[in-house]
């Protein structure tokens, strides 16, 4: 395989660009940051292609620890090494930490307010929709997959069924289906 040209899409200009970008991402991420990361970094800023995003997300998912924290470190380190990883990590955590502490301090006053509870419920429903749309959009990244699109869709559907409908533990699904998918791909990309 030829090396893909790494310079064919925009990059963060500096560490402060990285920090600000990740801070803004994190502060928009109600109900999870995944959808916002995909939307902003892939669709808008184009720091990553859909294919690169899925590959990084796979690693972030497999490794222990919070997924979006892992993902932000990996993206940061890709451009600026260790400094980039720490900068992205700081961007992802600093301001959200301040916000969540303020919410914790305010919580005792508003916990029983039905309007606050309603607003949280509405935002939760939207957040679920954002994640689903992220998954739908990423299907297009399977277009040029070595296994072919039908096999990919079948694997994705099996994974969805196991996790969403049967609610099997993630570890078994990744160990079983993930391993199967990797072995099949390994055979297909025989040099």
């Amino acid at each position, binding site marked *: 395989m030829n090396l893909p040209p790494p310079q064919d899409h925009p990059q963060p200009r500096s560490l402060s660009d990285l920090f600000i970008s990740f801070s803004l991402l994190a502060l928009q991420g109600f109900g999870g940051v995944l*959808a916002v990361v995909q939307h902003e970094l892939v669709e808008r800023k184009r720091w990553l292609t859909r294919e690169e995003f899925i590959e990084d997300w796979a690693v972030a998912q497999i490794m222990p620890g919070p997924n979006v924290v892992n993902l932000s470190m990996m993206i940061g380190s890709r451009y600026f090494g260790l400094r980039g990883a720490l900068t992205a990590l700081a961007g992802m955590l600093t301001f959200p930490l301040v916000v969540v502490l303020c919410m914790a301090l305010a919580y005792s006053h508003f916990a029983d307010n039905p309007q606050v509870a309603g607003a949280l419920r509405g935002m939760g429903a939207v957040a679920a929709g954002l994640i689903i749309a992220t998954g739908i959009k990423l299907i297009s990244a399977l277009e040029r997959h070595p296994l072919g699109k039908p096999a990919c869709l079948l694997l994705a559907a099996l994974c969805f069924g196991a996790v969403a409908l049967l609610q099997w533990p993630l570890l078994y699904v990744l160990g079983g289906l993930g391993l199967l998918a990797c072995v099949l791909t390994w055979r297909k990309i025989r040099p």
Partner: protein
Amino acid sequence: MSTLLQMHPADWLNLFVHYLSLSLLAVGGAITTAPDMHRYLVDQQHWMTESQFTASITLAQAAPGPNVLFIALMGWQVGVNSGSLMNALMGMAITMTGILLPSTTLTYIASRWGHNNRDLRAVRAFKQGMAPVVVGLILATGWLMSRAHGDPAKDWPLWLLTAVTAIIVWKTRVHLLWLLAAGGFMGWMGWI
């Protein structure tokens, strides 16, 4: 908590070690280790109440940013229960450092190795092979979040909102914050 919690230096150390030990077990997100935190913090050590534990998770889910911040709130809560703002800040630093240090170090080393060896057949097979599974997982995450709405027959407006949101984001380039604001507004007004 009617009486103030007594936290000795050894207790803080135990708290730190507990989170350190959970870090590498948190495959699939820190939330997967929440049951063990509950066992330790609430049942065994009595460092916080049941409702404080639940509120930490709920608040972090509602707040912007990574959900792992529920761990910061737990450290904060232990500190608050022991009586001072300084303790609260220290508790937060202890739990967050504990849960993040091992996993982020391992992820950093592994991802650098993977990036430097990205032409190895095994590395390519792993990253490309996982792609369809990852797509299925993301869709499953969205589905599980929707299920938290409750019974579709009664709570159908919430399910409808989720479906409409997914279609809008899929088909248009509207800013995600507008959608979140609209959802929050509709909930505030009691329409959904």
